[in-house]
């Protein structure tokens, strides 16, 4: 089954087509890679899929439900979609701990004013922060973390969205926009294992990445975009051997 599908999706920025009639499917429980030259529309695709940009035309289908003309950002958590950003976006003026705790926040105003976080919340925070090696840094402001730590905190934040006890927001679709870019090998290792774990847990992962070795290692399926269009798709090894794919990358 497809976790998300797009049909004839278009996204134009004042006339320029960043996504140009894209019909792709992301299979449930699989890691799908998205590659393509700079400016080919990968980030724009993630922005549309995560409700941060309304599509100009076309539809998307989530979990085989009815067709939707885009998604509102406020509904993505409800649909189990979560993401990271190419340019990391954290709650800068909050501590590492609070960046995660806020994901687990009670959603009723009354409860959130007068109730405390329960032991389950605290356990969850410790688990996800330990997972990415940031538990020791928990009382630092996110703003003061290093570049790599910032990327790891974003990973921890999406992990916190699994099995949250509120509004059924158990994330099942993970969009990673170049999570490895600029990281040291040890940090890459952590994120690689996180993605593998998500897959084992039956989650759907969409991974934008430029490093073809990582793509080969992690992805079940690969989509190649060029100028907002689908250039090729299939098994990673197979796709990456195609002449037009190599040309798209080298001919830039």
């Amino acid at each position, binding site marked *: 089954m497809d976790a998300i599908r797009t049909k004839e999706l278009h996204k134009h920025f004042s006339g320029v087509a960043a996504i140009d009639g894209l019909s792709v499917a992301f299979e449930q429980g699989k890691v799908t890679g998205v590659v393509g030259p700079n400016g080919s529309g990968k980030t724009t695709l993630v922005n549309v899929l995560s409700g941060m940009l309304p599509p100009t035309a076309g539809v998307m289908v989530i979990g085989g439900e009815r067709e939707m003309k885009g998604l509102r*950002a*406020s509904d993505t958590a409800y649909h189990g979609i979560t993401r990271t950003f190419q340019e990391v*976006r954290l709650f800068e003026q*909050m501590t590492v701990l609070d960046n995660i705790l806020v994901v687990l926040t009670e*959603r009723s*105003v009354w*409860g959130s*004013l007068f109730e405390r*976080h329960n032991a389950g919340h605290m356990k969850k925070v410790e688990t996800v922060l330990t997972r990415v090696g940031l538990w020791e840094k928990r009382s630092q402001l996110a703003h003061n973390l290093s570049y790599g730590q910032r990327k790891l905190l974003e990973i921890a*934040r999406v992990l916190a969205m699994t099995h949250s006890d509120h509004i059924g927001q158990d994330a099942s679709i993970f969009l990673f926009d170049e999570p490895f870019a600029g990281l040291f090998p040890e940090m890459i290792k952590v994120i690689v294992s996180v993605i593998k774990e998500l897959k084992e847990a039956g989650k759907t992962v969409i991974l934008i990445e430029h490093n073809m070795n990582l793509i080969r290692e992690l992805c079940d399926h690969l989509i190649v975009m060029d100028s907002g269009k689908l250039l090729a798709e299939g098994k990673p090894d197979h796709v990456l051997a195609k002449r037009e794919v190599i040309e798209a990358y080298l001919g830039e």
Partner: protein
Amino acid sequence: MGIIPQIIANSIIAGAIYALIALGFNLIYRTTKFFNLAHGALTVVGGYAMFFLYKELGWNVYASAVLAIVFAGFVGYILDKAIFRQLRLRKASQMVFLVASLGLLTVIQAIIAILFTSQFQTLANNSTESRVYTIAGGIITQTQAIILICGIVVLALLTLMLKKTMFGRAVNAVSDDEEVSKMVGIHTDKIIGWVFFIGSAIAGLSGILVGFDTGLEPTMGMHLLLKGVIAAIIGGVGTMHGAFAGAFLLGFAENFGVWQFSGEWKDAIAFIILIIFLLFRPQGIFKK
């Protein structure tokens, strides 16, 4: 020499009033990132709601105050839902927000003037219940003592709320990045609605206090708003303790200025301070 303690007392009272306005204004600003000029109108709404319940209906003073404060909060909440939320959905520019909120301020002040006339009204009862305290040579009335206590209590409660509660954490997240807050499942519209409620309720409280201290006029909203905004800016927009410090700095500058020069200088001094800060320290006393 005997006049100095009195000027200090007056400065503190003025500072406390400005602080209450600036705190509510700042709370809304840091969450929604727009200068909500309609905030001034909520002082008028609170003050006149109190006038209606307490003076016209003759209710008990505490019941009237609670209801008037809640009413001001509710009006703020409705303004957000009916107008500002719609503008947010349409991704309106800062200018649109500014003009819309200025328009609301004008309209609300006009409605109040129609309902209650533009005449000056006071909430205080014929002087009898107004007790007077002498502290270190300065005289303050009971009302003024209450104003000061309210200022401190509101700052303490807001700080506690923002630092210690889950709700506060969500407010901070929305302040930091509204879009990402939505993505992680925070109901940002609900949070912003309640922020408007709380901020407006505080404005309503300040309107009531001003009504007891000096009196009510439909146009006082604009005046109080300006002082609150100046206090917020010189304190460092968006920081709660900054708003508080800025308000007292403004209160002291105005009252000592009036003493040195004359009463007409009061507003001029406020704007001179604003301009000095905008030129030399635009980020305010506490930079963020």
